[in-house]
């Protein structure tokens, strides 16, 4: 009977854990949205053959590399912390790439180095975690063609709105000339 009671308690703990994990995912995202800093990142033109995998758009960002001193030692897949500044057009660009978590600010992104190029200068190519934008499968083909056309049209301004707080990021929207892609596919 005692072992039965213990098993029942363990079952309840497991059930709570199974509910808690997805709930915590929501809470963490919501906390970032409520208390985070809004950034707008420019999207770069993409290869029209496959911007869409499954039911999400793959977003490539223009500012995804950062030049560092050639004497500095960095490794592929190394965790890094990015801080941002605003450029003349109001878009967020990488200000610093840090090896340690910054103490005094909360407006930083936690990510990893994708790869390092070592030609004339040393450049860290960053792996942004907010590369996927999920869309309704019925609207997907139209969204795909609008996305491809706009990113390859140099007169069109395309960007993603991302909220960042304490290393976490939430991709809120993809905009083309200030109009949400969700509005454009309606």
């Amino acid at each position, binding site marked *: 009977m005692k072992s039965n009671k213990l*098993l*029942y308690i*363990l*079952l309840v703990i*497991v*059930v709570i*854990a*199974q*509910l808690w*994990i*997805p709930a915590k*995912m*929501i809470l963490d*995202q919501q906390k970032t949205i409520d208390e985070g800093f809004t950034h707008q990142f420019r999207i770069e033109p993409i290869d029209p053959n496959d911007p869409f995998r*499954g*039911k*999400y758009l793959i977003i490539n960002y223009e500012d995804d590399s950062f030049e560092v001193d050639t004497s500095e030692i960095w490794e*592929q*897949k190394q965790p890094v912390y990015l801080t941002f500044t605003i450029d003349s057009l109001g878009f967020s660009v990488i200000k610093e790439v840090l090896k340690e978590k910054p103490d005094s600010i909360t407006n930083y992104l936690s990510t990893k180095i994708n790869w390092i190029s070592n030609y004339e200068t040393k450049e860290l190519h960053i792996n942004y*975690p*907010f*590369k*996927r*934008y*999920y*869309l*309704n*499968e019925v609207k997907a083909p139209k969204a795909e063609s609008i996305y491809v056309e706009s990113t390859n049209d140099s007169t069109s301004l395309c960007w993603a709105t991302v909220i960042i707080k304490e290393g976490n*990021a*939430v*991709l*809120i929207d993809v905009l083309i000339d200030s109009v949400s892609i*969700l509005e454009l596919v309606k």
Partner: protein
Amino acid sequence: MKFQKEISELLTAGVISNDTADNINHYYLQKKASKPNWLITVFAILGGLLIGLGVVLIIAHNWDDLSKTVRSLLAFTPLVIGQAIIIFVFNKKRKNTAWRESSTTFLIFAIGGCISLISQIYNIPGNISAFMLTWVALSLPLIYLMKSSLASLLCIAGITYYAIETGYASYDSHESYYYWVLLLLIVPHYMSLIKQNSTGNFAIYHHWFIPLSFTICLGIMADHNEELMYIAYTSMFALFLQIGEHNTFKNGALRNNGYKIIGSLGTIILLLTMSFDWFWKDMNAFENSFIEIITSNELMISLAFVVITSLFAFKSWQQTPLKTIKPEEAIYIIVVLFYLIPGIPIVLTILTNVIVLSIGIITIAQGTQKRQLGILNYGLLIITALVICRFFDTDLSFILRGILFIGVGFGFFIANYRFLKTKQRHEK
């Protein structure tokens, strides 16, 4: 039933009396009644799997017409239903295998579906390996709480996929070490399955899943000294062969013995790879420093497998006559020696070819001795595979290669013909 027809025949022929016929009927009817109805269990599990897969398929559908709150609630619904069913089964139907297995299966898929849906609804960044790790970690306790073997098999599949993603598909393979921890957590359930019924269906599936998972995932330990992994692999396959010869598998069919089949095939495939001259030439060019080798993961895992296999071998060979020991069980010792003793590549290549040929011949001899056509043909296949490999990398003329193939082909026919003739003579 078939035997009832036989009983009527024997009764008519006066071979058995009425009482004996009644006793036989009664015995078989009782035996049938005490067997669990596996058909119900299978259909229940299939039902659970299909419902669960239906839940997972929902991750392909995006519900942007509903608010995030409603979508989140809907995402949690299958999970909550699954948990309610589990609690019901735990309280009222714990002894019923069909209920236990199907409800656990449904819950496992509901967990995966919930996490996936939440990730989509909130555009939560993440990679497949983190998702798999979370999914398996939340599902694993169900193996023991619900005594579910299907949960165990699903978890093994899950951690294998996780290991492939982290160990092979990414540059940073350190996270893949969780694979070993998770597999270790599943082993006690496997042990209890063997203890209860080592020839039952679930145990048999585990006899395949576990060695297959090991075979697929051992390579995640490879880093900068992958040449050493051949020692780990040959030792691991030798260990599988040892396990396959254990009493647990003595009375079962060969197809139920995943360890033996994977151990044997794995060893032969590795040896055939090592029979090419480029293999030993590349080994000769292996120039990593002593410190790098001594501190490498590859050396540690190789040493671990060599030690474990040797301990197993020592224990089992003490009780086994020398002539019944399979040569593949000892191959790992030869491979270790080839690595330790520096040799000329061509000599090592020839020796490896001789070893493969010898294994083929010994297997044919064992097949003939035990009067098992399958083993005899396996030996012939080993020799054929060796000949095919040499076809591609030697400079023999086409005529000579043709003669070799014809020779092996004739060998196949003659060996099988003589075997069947001898078998027929003995049966007469």
